[in-house]
């Protein structure tokens, strides 16, 4: 078990303005699993991802990564935890504008004691001919590939993806999903992806459907469909 959540609760605001975003989430993800958090806007999926990622905190409950409790970690320890175990991919690529593709990926490599080979990864990402380009010379898909490279080069235990295809067209979205699938299979990282795209659930090992801060449905796919075959 790589990730275990027990009765995780989170609310924002105070007194009459208080809104409970997560209302007792229990979740278990196995190592190497591809997990999709599905749900409409405001269902709490991004908050849940941020809490798993250690950039937001739960009000109560337990979060265990490799059976280590992380709710008690201080800011410094949380940074260490993110550095050692997590990779992040966002809808906005958030690349450093004055660094090249290769250098942006190296930014991720710098954070790891045992990073993947950057050149090999660039080839896997299909960015070989763009490695010396800066982000503004790339298409949206190429930028997202770069951000995936930056996240995966650390060889993290868990790859957290927050709507990674939200700003991309159909074809590019599929490319990115295929790439994440490849990474998951090739490097064995656990992937937790937040999406509101219902079709993506079919490529996951574990599907968690959220609604109004609660898990509405949770199941494991008996047979996954490859990303290339997804349609929406």
């Amino acid at each position, binding site marked *: 078990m790589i990730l275990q959540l027990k009765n995780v609760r989170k609310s924002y605001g105070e007194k009459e303005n208080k809104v409970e975003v997560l209302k007792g989430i229990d979740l278990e993800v196995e190592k190497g699993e591809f997990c999709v958090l599905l749900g409409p806007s405001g269902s709490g999926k991004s908050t849940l991802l941020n809490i798993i990622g250690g*950039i937001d905190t739960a009000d109560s409950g337990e979060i265990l990564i490799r059976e280590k409790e992380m709710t008690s970690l201080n800011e410094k320890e949380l940074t260490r935890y*993110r550095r050692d175990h997590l990779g992040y991919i966002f809808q906005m690529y958030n690349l450093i504008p004055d660094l090249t593709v290769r250098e942006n990926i190296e930014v991720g490599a710098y954070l790891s004691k045992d990073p993947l080979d950057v050149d090999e990864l660039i080839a896997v990402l299909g960015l070989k001919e763009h490695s010396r380009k800066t982000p503004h010379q790339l298409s949206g898909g190429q930028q997202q590939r770069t951000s995936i490279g930056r996240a995966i080069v650390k060889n993290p235990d868990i790859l957290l993806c927050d709507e990674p295809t939200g*700003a991309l067209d159909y074809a590019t979205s599929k490319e990115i999903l295929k790439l994440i699938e490849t990474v998951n299979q090739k490097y064995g990282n656990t992937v937790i992806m937040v999406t509101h795209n219902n079709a993506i659930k079919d490529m996951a090992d574990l599907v968690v459907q959220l609604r109004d801060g609660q898990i509405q449905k949770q199941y494991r796919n008996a047979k996954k469909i490859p990303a290339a075959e997804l349609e929406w």
Partner: protein
Amino acid sequence: MRDPLRKRHLRDLKKQFPRYLVIFLLLFLSIGFTSGFLVADGSMIKAYNESFTKYRIEDGHFRSAYKLNRSQLKRIEEAGVQVYELFYKEEELPEGRTLRIYKDRKDVDLVCLMEGRLPERREEIAVDRMFAENNGFQIGDVLSAAERDYTICGLVALSDYSALFSDNNDTMFDALYFGVGVVSEEAFDYPEDTLCYEYAFTYSDPPQDETEEKTMSDDFLKVLNAEIRIEEYIPRYLNQAIRFTGEDMGSDKQMMEVLLIIIVLITAFVFALTTSDTIAQESAVIGTLRASGYSQGELLRHYMTMPFLVTLFSAIAGNIGGYTVFKDLCAGLYYASYSLPTYETVFSGEAMLETTLIPLLIMVLVTFLILRSKLKISPLRFLHNDLRSGRRHGVIPLSEKIPFFSCYRTRILFANRGNYLSIFVGFLFANLLLMFGMGLPMLLDAYQENMEMNLLSTYQYVLKMPVSLQQDDHKLEGLLEGVGFLRDTETSNIDAEKFSAYELELIPELGFRQENVSFYGVEEDSRYIQGLEGRTLISSALAEKYELSAGDTLTLKERYEDTVHEIPVEGVYDYSGALCIFMPREELNRTFDLPEDTFLGYFSNTPITDIPQSRIASVIELDDLTKVSRQLDISFGAMMVYVDVFAVLIFLILTYLISKVIIEKSAVSISMVKILGYTDREVSSLYLRSTTTAVIVSLLLTTLIDRYALEYVYNYLIARRMSGWIPFVIKPQIYPLMFLLGVTAYAVVALIEYHRIRKVRLSEALKNVE
């Protein structure tokens, strides 16, 4: 693996080159000038300090009205001193210049030859280098004095005249109208009655510190007083001609250090603000990096690197400049004021530290504090571009009646209040410099004008009291001399009005100089000092300097004695020319035990021609009273132009950097309103006018604050660092001039920024990635 983020620095430097260049220039100039100043100052202070031994500078000197005989000298020397003749002759040169001529010194107060050679022939003279420079005299020129012509054979610095004070009581030295020179021993054959009998002395057993020096000096004075009638006694520690230079150089050093700290503080603050702006622009990237595991410390170091590197390079370049160009410039400033001997550049570890380590420390500290507060928010808030620290407040409510454009501008003003605050703080400093730079020459002019308007009389004739009249043990001689004195000093000039005079010493408060106060005993119904009505009035200069008013009591002591006088102040007489006290003549004579009819001089608006020159000690005219303003103008006039230029440079750099930050920060909004159809002119009126308003308000407010700050600083410094008084005056025409300079500097920046606004692309608002 090294942090790949470091690769950004060089690219950032290229991208933001104008920003870094102006910050570099500001720091380079400030550090360079300070470094040059400290090196020159340190080297010259070293040369000055060494000159005491090298040139065997006296421990003091005294002047007797007559030449001392051998037995007197012997008895005086028994007090543990060596006495040396330092007789001089004062020659009047054309245009009111006075040259004090000594014979070449062999034993004490030696001469430093700066150019040419020392005199050998009878007609030759070596004159003070600065006196020569100020008057355009060169080697080979002939100086025509009343009785003799002299050919200049060399330029020298006399070790006991590093500051050319003709009188130790003068407020300021006067290197234009007063100079010193040496002739050969053979040439020093002037008639005895035209000589001044000055004697230098050195202690056989030199004092170890200033306290001991004072005790020894006081003891020696008692011996002298018992032996001879002293006309003047100046121990070295009170001799302005010797000490003023050292003290001034020491205090200049502190002033430059403080100035550098202020400039680096402002620059660091602006640097931190511009970097904060970069952080705001890179908010999402920072959020991602933090989410990926970059620590706050790593990012803090990353964003602090450029301010650190720019300061480091400025400090290195500044120090190179300091040891080369700026050092000579600063040494030139000293040589323009003081008659210093030659100096050798001395490496100063302290100066190097002060101009590298301190700017770096300030830069690191300020950027650390500001950027840490900026970076301490959570990664999530960076990702959400929610960078406001502390509790979030809603927008400031504005009345709906305010027109849209005004409302928009007000919002921009509030959104950039941190940036505008830094403009205000920077202007506060720049305006203070500008007001000082522009105000000092005006203040000196005003002083000159005031002196012309408020002279006590066009001429003040001070008579030479016969020595025998002053000595109790020469009664018969005194009586005969007295009759002759009274006969000779009567005048038929109907403008002339007698006054008696006396002089006492102020007991200095801590930090103040020791100085004398003159008493004028004036006639009842005087034509020159009106409104006395039997009262004791102090001059406005004395009142302002020591903050005295009617009802106060002034405590003064006899010069060279311990007798103390308490003088009640009954009012203030409007006269800035000297620290003096006016009282009825009879009262003055009674107070100081002078014979009832004693008088010591005449006030007159026309020249008195029927008193023999031998009976006149001095004639005080406008030139004598304004030598302080004249000398300050010579010493600082040229430097003030640098101060003005530097102040305007700060205006330019500050407004440029801040306006640039505001416009870059607002690029998306600017692009958006352009998309909506606003013209460049309209957009500029929204974004530039807010800055214009902030600039104008800051200019006006800081001028007002600086006016009072400058008065306070000026009064504080002048009261402590100078004898005498020059009242603080700010001429009204300075305000529009300052405003115009500030606005012109901003107009240049506004033009650049208008161009920048025009360059903001419409796509800026539409792109959602880098």
